[in-house]
C-alpha cells in the first residue's frame, strides 16, 4: 500500500466531510483520529480489541487447521469428500446473519465470533487445499510410487510444496472475511466487552466518530494479523523451498 494513496483517500474523506458539514453523518479524519487516541488511552479499549482479536483469530486458526485436515482426508478418501460436500455448499451460501442467529441458540455469545469466524473460513481453506491436492503433479506421484517413497516424504516433498500456494490464497481470502464476519456477528450477538458491542453502542448513541474509530481499529487489527500470518506462511514456504539445502 502506497503512502500517497492513503494520503489521497484521507484528503477525499476530509473534503467530503467538509462538504457535508455534519460530524454526526460524516466526521472529519481529524475528529476520528482524536477520538481514536482518546479511546486508546482507556484500558477498556484494549480489552475489547484483545477480546475480539483472540476469538476471531482462534476461529481462523481452527478453521485453517481443520480445513487442511478435512481436505487431506477427503482427497485420500473420496467418500469423505462426498459426505462433506452438502455441508460445505450449505455453509458457503448461508448469510452471516443466519449463522449468527442460529449459533446464538447453541453457544454463549462470548464465543460467537470464534464459531462465525470458523464457519466463514473453513469452506475457503477446505475448497482451496482440496483443489491443490487434486492438482498435485501426477507424474511426481508416479515417481514417488516407483521409488516406494514413504508417505511422510511424499507429504513433505510433493504435496506440501504443491498445495502451499492454494493454502496461501485461501488464507489471504479468509483473513479479511473472518474479521468482517466475526465483528458482524458480535454486532448481532453483543457479547460483553467485544468490539462489535462497542460499535453497536456507538451507533445507538449516534457517536459517529466512535463508530469510525472502532472501524479503523478493526481494519488495523485485521491488516496487522494478516501481515503477521502471511509472513509466517511465507516463512514456511521458504522452508519448504529450501528444504533441499537442509536435507543435503
Amino acid at each position, binding site marked *: 500500500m502506497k503512502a500517497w494513496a492513503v494520503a489521497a483517500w484521507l484528503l477525499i474523506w476530509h473534503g467530503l466531510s467538509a462538504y457535508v458539514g455534519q460530524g454526526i453523518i460524516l466526521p472529519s479524519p481529524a475528529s476520528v483520529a482524536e477520538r481514536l487516541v482518546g479511546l486508546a488511552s482507556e484500558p477498556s479499549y484494549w480489552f475489547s480489541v484483545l477480546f475480539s482479536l483472540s476469538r476471531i483469530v482462534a476461529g481462523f486458526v481452527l478453521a485453517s487447521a481443520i480445513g487442511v485436515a478435512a481436505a487431506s482426508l477427503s482427497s485420500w478418501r473420496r467418500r469423505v469428500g462426498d459426505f462433506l460436500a452438502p455441508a460445505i455448499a450449505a455453509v458457503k451460501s448461508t448469510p452471516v446473519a443466519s449463522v449468527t442467529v442460529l449459533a446464538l441458540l447453541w453457544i454463549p455469545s462470548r464465543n460467537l465470533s470464534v464459531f462465525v469466524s470458523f464457519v466463514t473460513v473453513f469452506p475457503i481453506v477446505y475448497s482451496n487445499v482440496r483443489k491443490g491436492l487434486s492438482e498435485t503433479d501426477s*507424474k*511426481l506421484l508416479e515417481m514417488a*510410487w516407483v*521409488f*516406494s517413497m514413504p508417505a511422510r516424504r511424499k507429504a513433505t*516433498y510433493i504435496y506440501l510444496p504443491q498445495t502451499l500456494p492454494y493454502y496461501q490464497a485461501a488464507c489471504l481470502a479468509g483473513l479479511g472475511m473472518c474479521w468482517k464476519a466475526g465483528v458482524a456477528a458480535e454486532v448481532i450477538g453483543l457479547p460483553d466487552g467485544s468490539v462489535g458491542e462497542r460499535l453497536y453502542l456507538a451507533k445507538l448513541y449516534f457517536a459517529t466518530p466512535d463508530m469510525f474509530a472502532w472501524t479503523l481499529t478493526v481494519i488495523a487489527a485485521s491488516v496487522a494479523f494478516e501481515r503477521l500470518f502471511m509472513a509466517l506462511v511465507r516463512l514456511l514456504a521458504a522452508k519448504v523451498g529450501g528444504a533441499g539445502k537442509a536435507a*543435503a
Partner: protein
Amino acid sequence: MTGLGLCGVCKSYGGNAVLSGFTGAYGAGEAHCLMGPSGVGKTTLLRIMMGLELPDRGEVVGFGGLKKSAVFQEDRLLEGLSAAANVSAACRRPPGAGAVMESLAAVGIGPDSCSQPVRSMSGGQRRRVAIVRALEAEYDALFLDEPFKGLDEATKAMALRYVRARSAGRTVFLVTHDESECVAMGGTVTYLSPPPGAGGCGNVRRAGSGRPWGSKQC
C-alpha cells in the same frame, strides 16, 4: 529373481492399439534394450513393466513385488530440493551425503551445484540428477526411458559409463533410439515395430533378440 516376461500384452488408448499381443522374455541380472520408432509403444511397455499401467489383455510375469527404480522421459525432480536431497529422497535408506556427492561428481555435477535447488540447474544437469537418483535407489529392476536425452556427447559418455558401472549384473531395461547406447550397455536388444493395422489384439509381436516366447509358450 527368476525370469521376467510379458505374454500377449495388449494396450490401446482411445481405440488406438499401441501394443498388440506383445510377447517377450527377459533374463534377470541382464541389460535389455528396447528400440523402435517413436510411438511404437516402448514407453508404454516400460510403464506396464513398472506397474504404472495395466495391460488391456495379456500377462505380465515376474515384475510384481520387485523393487523398482527409474529414469523417466521427463526428469520428475522435486524442484525445491537440491540435487543431493533429490537423490536421498528416492532412497529407502538414504545414503550418506559423501556417497551422494561422489555419485553426482561421477556424472560431472560438482559440490557447488549439489546444494542448489534443481530448479536453478540446466537441463543437462537435471537429467544427470535423475540418472543418479535412479542408480542410487535400492532396486531389483531399473527402468531407463531415454535417460541420456538432451546430453551432449561428452556428458552422455560420462553418464553412460556411470550407468554401466553402477548397474553391472543388475536387471536393466533401457528404452533408446541410439544403438550405441545398447552396445555400451552390452545387453539384449528388442526391436518393436508398429502393430499391423489399427485395433485388434492378437498379433503377436516379435520380442527381438531377447529370448522371445512363442505364443504357444504363453
